[in-house]
């Protein structure tokens, strides 16, 4: 039970973990429902928005809601274990309580992307924000042109969402390519760095958007590769990560000049990024 005052920005809704999926050695996915049935029924978000998850006693951290608004049975968050809060989250089990402050931030420009070809390039945990947009587009398939996904991880064992990959690989209405830095003898897909595989795949930049997410170094070289393929900065979309606390533009932690990643982001086009002061 929570005393709920809708106007308190910092009071999380209480949620229950319904399911925990072990994605990789250090990534777990949590499917969470809000305890208040009305809050759950009325919950609205757009692909790309994030939430603050609370483990009371440890604190809050920011994660992308990587389920899709077209399927509202639960809110899904995939969490890489890196520090104190994520460590504690990984110990939680179905039935355990967490706090959820969501949705926060802006979203992918999925309306402007209608009618375009979409190229997804995800690295590691960076696949999480792409998943929400990909599922949304697959659920509204007719609105979008060709859909291409390139997903890379360090090794086959580091691939999240492995239970969905066969479907994505088999579907006729999308093209999926997987790559790893280090393969295993039975790995049937690419071995090699994401930007190199992307250049080989050479998706067309015409009437297209590319969405990329992953470690900063991967994003940097992926954007270079996209440029060689003819993608313009306004056709390239990415999400930024900054250390966040309030999530609503007050605590002053996540600004780059006048922009606050928590409310003006996390989604930006590369054109917008270039207009920001150089402080990424």
């Amino acid at each position: 039970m929570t005393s709920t005052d809708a106007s308190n920005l910092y009071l999380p809704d209480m949620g229950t973990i319904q399911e925990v999926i072990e994605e990789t050695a250090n990534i777990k996915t949590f499917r969470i429902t809000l305890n208040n049935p009305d809050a759950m029924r009325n919950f609205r978000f757009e692909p790309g928005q994030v939430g603050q998850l609370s483990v009371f006693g440890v604190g809050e951290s920011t994660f992308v809601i990587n389920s899709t608004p077209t399927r509202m049975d639960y809110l899904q968050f995939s969490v890489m274990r890196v520090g104190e809060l994520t460590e504690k989250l990984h110990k939680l089990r179905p039935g355990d309580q967490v706090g959820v402050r969501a949705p926060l931030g802006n979203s992918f420009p999925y309306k402007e992307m209608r009618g375009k070809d979409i190229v997804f390039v995800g690295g590691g945990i960076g696949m999480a924000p792409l998943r929400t947009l990909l599922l949304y587009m697959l659920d509204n398939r007719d609105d979008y042109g060709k859909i291409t996904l390139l997903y890379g991880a360090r090794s086959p064992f580091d691939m999240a969402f492995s239970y969905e990959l066969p479907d994505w690989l088999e579907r006729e209405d999308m093209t999926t390519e997987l790559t790893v830095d280090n393969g295993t003898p039975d790995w049937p897909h690419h071995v090699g760095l994401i930007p190199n595989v992307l250049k080989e795949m050479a998706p067309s930049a015409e009437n297209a958007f590319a969405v990329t997410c992953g470690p900063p170094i991967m994003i940097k070289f992926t954007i270079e590769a996209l440029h060689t393929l003819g993608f313009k900065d306004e056709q390239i979309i990415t999400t930024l990560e900054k250390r966040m606390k309030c999530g609503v533009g007050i605590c002053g932690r996540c600004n780059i000049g006048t922009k606050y990643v928590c409310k003006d982001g996390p989604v930006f086009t590369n054109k917008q990024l270039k207009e920001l002061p150089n402080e990424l």
Partner: protein
Amino acid sequence: MLTARYIADDKLMPWLLSLAETRQVLAPVRQGGQTLFAPLDADSQLDLEGLADASAKAALLPRCETLLEFHYSKGEGVPSRTELEVRETLPDRDAFLFGARPCDAKGFTVFDRVYDGGSRRDIYYCTRRDKTIVAALACTDPADTCFCNRVGGGPGDTDGSDILFTPVEGGYVIEPVTERGEAFLAEQPLVEAEGRLEEARQVRKDVAESMPGGDPLGGAQGEVLRLFDDQEFWGGVAAKCLSCGACSYLCPTCYCFNMTDEINGDDGVRVRTWDNCMSFQFTLEGSGHNPRNGKAQRMRNRIGHKFSYYPELHDGNLACVGCGRCIVHCPVSMDVRAIVAQARDRALAKQEHAND
């Protein structure tokens, strides 16, 4: 409008103490060699000389405040701790902030635009703001480090205050500024100021005129931003900075915060505490990457926020009220006025160079 009131010097403390019976009265008092805003009681040594060492911001944004309380309990027949109760802890106390200087009070307007920004209302701050009467005390003896007049304020200004006290011969003239201030004063057993209002106005005028001039420091948004990539400039400015954070902790307009949980057994609290962008940890990310790795970048953010980003977002209003505390208390004597002036000169020089 209610007419002004008057209180004699020797009646002030008894009146404040009588107020303190029903609400918290915060006032500048001597504590361990410093003058700080603290709850007033009969033993307090009120100090109304000059500016308090710390700003009055803690009256509305406490250094440390509890936002939520939570309690874990064992679920029925389930050995793991799954039941969880979370409760918000909103401020409920009326307060009277006495002796804030006009710059301190104006600092609250800087907060208001962020914490009371339409759809984004920080209920803790806003509740405290609603429950606190801000009574400013006009300055009669500005220090060398004061520069309110160069950042859009003045020693007798009323921005952010509900009531203004002006020292006159033998006591204070008390004028309402807001309706809230007026309603509050109407209930107080204070005498009418009668003919003393003119005297108060003259005091304020004389003090304002006595302050040294100097270029206004507003309107430097573009200049500061144009220097963003000027490593040499920011490196030079920040060279002696110790990253101690004194400047932001004492500043009446710095409002950044952190939120952390504390737990003891099954009970815990989520607290909000002041934070400080001059610290390395402020923006440190999981990968070890830090977008503001060096003190030059952090200094650039502090100055940039006050004189460029904030004014850009808030109709040209600066996030500096010219109290000068950061100048007085910086262990290596950084002078924010000089930094902004240098930034402007440098940007203009560059511009001219580019135009040649």
